[in-house]
């Protein structure tokens, strides 16, 4: 039996059940009959916003433009442990690049890929453009707006007759007076239309209308300022919002501002302050752990990730990061348990099997190794992942001594990802063993040019040049190796030896 129901009620119910498309369709119909139905208009606005909503805290892509044209950098030479931009400012406890690979900005590779793991700040424009992708994420985004623009245009497809709300004809002053519409409209402009300038206008007028007493509008103002790159203004708004009302989100936004301003210590303090108000808040703890990890203070990061797990034992990021930390501190068996846990929880992707395969190999469970990699290969989503799997397989075959197969694996890795610097480096070592010095040298030079932050190609090139008697190139390569990894003992010894040699001459 058909039962008639109020369409607006149905739309409202659909919205609550997150059936956004149906909700939007019903609202469109209501609006066709009665274009001035504010409730339907508001509901449709919310549904459209919700379709494209991404938590602003997670959106953190620093484009080349922001990196290079940043004028708000404070200290060019920061003291150790106070900046995220200087590589190698670890305060001890961090793993060396010999044990744990680094990204270009000199940070250890993390166990969990998130937008901000790539926010290394390249020193020069040239470096920014040809950034290698060591964690398959390190490639800089050409512009931070790329993603936002795509979100904006996606909405056009759903509305073939044009945008739902014509922003240029909107009387913002009128809407800012109506508290029951203004917030919805703001979110629509900010998230759906991605028109920060208009959103800022609306927020400014609305906060004025609320007599500067509404914390929410201040947070929104801060978000707009942040998008526009006015970090100090954003900080002011967030601070003021916190004075009105302590909210977790505000702490997260403010910490994001401080991270962008390269003040990790301030951000840490802020997170701790937030934890005083909201004890056990997972997002705040994760924030602390991420900062510690980026500052190469892995042991503290692990402590905080463990705290996160005490609050929420299904936190994938925490499990993955602890797992990778165990792996890089020579405890593959324990890492294996963490990764297995992730698998049991239903994380089912190529990267996980890749990690599982490596852990199995280092934990000497050879029976599982190849089948893990087999699954990883079956699950690859793109060429970079495939290259990584083949690269790891190459490692495994080197380990079992099948150098021909290893050679082929590295070749395959390069076939899938032509700038896989690590594969070039390893291939060079294999070529050198075969005695093909020219080939080896060429591979090493390629690896060094692709990933200048890696010390291995430089060091290998140095050794090779020294063996064939080209002491000058050996010396320059050794110096480069020392630049990227000052504590490397072998490099230092080689340098010393070369210097003695030169002194004798």
């Amino acid at each position, binding site marked *: *039996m058909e*039962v008639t*129901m*109020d369409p*607006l*009620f149905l739309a*409202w*119910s659909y919205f*609550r*059940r*997150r*059936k956004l498309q149906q909700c939007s369709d019903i609202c469109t119909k209501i609006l066709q009959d009665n274009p001035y139905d*504010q*409730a339907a208009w*508001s*509901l449709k606005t*919310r549904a459209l916003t919700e379709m494209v909503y991404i*938590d602003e805290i997670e959106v953190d892509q620093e484009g080349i433009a922001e990196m290079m044209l940043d004028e708000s950098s404070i200290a060019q030479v920061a003291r150790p442990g106070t900046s995220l931009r200087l590589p190698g400012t670890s305060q001890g406890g961090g793993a060396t690049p010999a044990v744990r690979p680094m990204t270009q900005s000199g940070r250890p590779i993390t166990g969990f890929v998130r937008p901000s793991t790539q926010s290394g700040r390249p020193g020069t424009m040239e470096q920014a453009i040809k950034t290698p992708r060591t964690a398959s994420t390190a490639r800089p985004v050409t512009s931070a707006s790329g993603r936002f623009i795509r979100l904006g245009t996606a909405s056009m497809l759903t509305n073939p007759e044009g945008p739902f709300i014509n922003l240029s004809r909107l009387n913002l002053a009128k809407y800012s007076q109506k*508290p*029951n*519409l203004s*917030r*919805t409209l703001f979110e629509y402009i900010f998230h759906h239309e991605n028109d920060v300038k208009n959103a800022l206008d609306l927020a400014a007028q609305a906060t004025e209308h609320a007599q500067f007493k509404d*914390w*929410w509008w201040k*947070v929104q103002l801060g978000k707009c300022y942040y998008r526009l790159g006015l970090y100090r203004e954003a900080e002011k708004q967030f601070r003021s919002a916190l004075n009105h*009302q*302590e*909210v*977790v*989100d505000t702490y997260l936004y403010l910490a994001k501002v401080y991270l962008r301003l390269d003040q990790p210590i301030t951000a840490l303090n802020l997170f701790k302050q937030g934890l005083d108000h*909201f*004890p*056990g*808040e*997972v*997002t705040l703890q994760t924030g602390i752990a991420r900062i510690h990890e980026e500052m190469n203070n892995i042991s503290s990061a692990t402590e905080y990730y463990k705290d996160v797990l*005490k*609050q*929420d*034992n*299904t936190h*994938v990021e925490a499990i993955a990061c602890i797992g990778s930390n165990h792996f890089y501190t020579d405890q593959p068996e324990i890492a294996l348990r963490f990764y297995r*846990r992730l*698998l*049991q*929880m*239903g*994380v*089912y992707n190529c990267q996980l099997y890749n990690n599982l395969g490596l852990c199995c190999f280092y934990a000497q469970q050879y029976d599982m190794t190849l*089948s893990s990699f*087999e*699954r990883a290969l*079956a699950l690859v989503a793109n060429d970079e992942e495939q290259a990584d799997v083949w690269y790891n397989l190459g490692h495994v075959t080197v380990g079992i001594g099948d150098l021909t197969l290893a050679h*082929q694996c590295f*070749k395959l890795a*390069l076939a899938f990802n032509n700038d896989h610097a690590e594969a070039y480096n390893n291939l060079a070592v294999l070529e050198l063993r075969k005695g093909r010095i020219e*080939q080896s040298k*060429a*591979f090493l030079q390629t690896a060094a040019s692709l990933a200048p932050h890696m010390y291995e190609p430089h060091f290998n090139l140095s050794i090779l040049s020294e063996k064939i008697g080209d002491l000058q190139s050996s010396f320059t390569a050794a110096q480069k190796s020392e630049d990227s990894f000052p504590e490397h003992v072998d490099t230092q010894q080689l340098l010393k030896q070369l210097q003695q040699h030169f002194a004798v001459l």
Partner: protein
Amino acid sequence: MSLFKARDWWSATLGEGEEFDQGCLCVGDVDNSGTEHDKVVVGSYMGMLRIFSPHANKTSEGALVEALLLEVQLQNAIIQVEVGKFVSCSDLLHLAVLHPRKLSVFSVSGTAGNVEHGDQYQLKLVYEHNLQRTACNMTYGTFGGVTGHHSLCIQSMDGMLMFFEQDSYTFGRFLPGFLIPGPLVYNSRTDSFLTVSSARQLESYKYETLAVATEAESRQDPDLPLKTGGKRLTPDWTFVLGEQALDLCVPSLSHYSSFIFILGERNLYCLRDSGQIRFMKKLEFNPSSFLPYASVTDGTTNLLLGNHTNMLLVYQDVTLKWAAQLPFVPVSIRVANFPEIKGVVISLSSDGHLLCSYMGTDPSFFSTPKVDAREADYEQVDAEMKTLQKFIREATRTQDILAKTDAEEDLIVTVAVSSSMDSPSQALIQDIDGLTVPSVTVQLKVKARCVVQSSKMTVGIQPPLAVTQETFVLEPMGAGSSTVVAFSAFLNGRYPAADLTGDITVSFSLPTGVPRVLQSKFSLPLALVCVPTSPAKTTKFKITVDTNQPPVNLNSIFPEFSAKSEDKDGNSLAFQFLSGAKVTVVASKTSQRYRIQSDCFEDMWLVLKELVQRFDKHFSKLGVKDFKKSFSGPLPMQEYFLSVDHHFQLRVSAQQYQDLLSERAVQFRAIQRRLLTRFKDKTPAPLQNLDTLLDATYSQVRHNSHSSA
């Protein structure tokens, strides 16, 4: 993402294509059996009302029929069901059913039958209200502190709260600033109503305030000024959430305090009933429904939370205690007690899946799909491996990442220097000391054997010689195609050239992206830098070259210079360099000697070199194999050193001039800077003769640059 799934105790699929939402599920001892055992009441948007009393699963077929106590098709859609004491003078629980335009209160009663499955249940309408406005949701409670029975409050889609005290309508109030309805809940401790308005704030209205506010019916027209009879309705307090709420709940856990739980779209809030925040938790998923319930530990509250990733989460305050996988997204969650089991979680999905479950350590039903592993036939695999290995070997031999250097070039450059001088001359300096400066055309033919891209050609030549164009950007060429470019070379300076050869460098890339470089040489004719003239008899410097062959006619060796020569027997030839010196070559008539003489030692080199080269060519053409040329006598070291010294002196003085010039330039800039600060200064100060100094330095700089040039 969870390790475990919720353990299935009893489940049912209700109807087909029916829709359910938040209000459609409620539990309670609706038939007043007195056993404290709950029944599950479910109403659907299609108007079906069902009451269940679930048992542990015995047989899958009979379970649903046996558990279903009552199934009624009502006339209207059911948007909410509640169990409470809705009938006056009765302590029994009744069922309130909210339809879009009607509120009905039913009594449910059961009569024991004679046979085993014979219990009979009946639904009896006690009273009903027709509503003026479309209802949205309702709440009930002991409004105004009345004990013993429950009143109902219905929120309409256009923001009116309608109050019903049993079978009578008491009053209706419009909420201020209303747009879209939010969840509505009654807090009995403070006797107030809570809702989350469209302004995204939690608003609390006291029941008394509502009662004395303006009567809703009296302000049909919102534009009219308010009547003086009632007060304008204002909330008791508000709390800005900044997001819409999915659900509100005030669990009555103790008499001393009550907490308000708000499930927002992105956060979970817990507020004290005075409006202060107790805790909040940022949710990293999209929640669908929640239910706070009593906790075993003092001072904490437990919470069931369903989300859109099919999870049922149990929180104690903000700590996650348990996570279980559900087979659907729950739109409503309740906890009920049944005869066999207490505290069963009842969840309802939007398409009518009703599940009674409990927490357990059943692993989640996620299992990894199988990789299509072939059954290995080892012989076949071996054979395949062998053929593949062969392919690989072949491939590594023929093609590699680094291409092998090919024996034959991909590009061939042929240079043809024209034998005659250009007319008119292309030279930039038209004449030196009355002698016209000639130029010669050089033609380059580039032939590609394969496809060549982005090729660039550079001509390198020693000054004072120069060319009309130094770099050429060539079009991409296909296999076998060729391109011809031409340029002219000429003398571009007033001193003799030291070398007449030039280099051509072609850089190009193959289609595979491999960059390649090709080099080639050419030599320009001597006639470019000198003209024939009459021989000079007496000169300062002489060099004699001995050969082992009979003397040759110089005219045949230098045919282009013979035309002007008066000496017909070809014994002497003279070259006048454009830049000055004259060089004479004299061939001995009898001996096999040649003498080169000139007033300028350096200039003889070019002629000597040319002579030796031409001799070589001449005799090799004649087929003479053992042609030798030698220089007897002491090397003219003295003269050589003299010119080296001279050259050195020149360089030193050039360096001196350079230094002086840079010094002056620094001084000039310093004075400029001082002057600038003076001029920019707000209080005018005397120039202190800086201008004179500037002028003087300027003239010095000019003087220096002239002399260094």
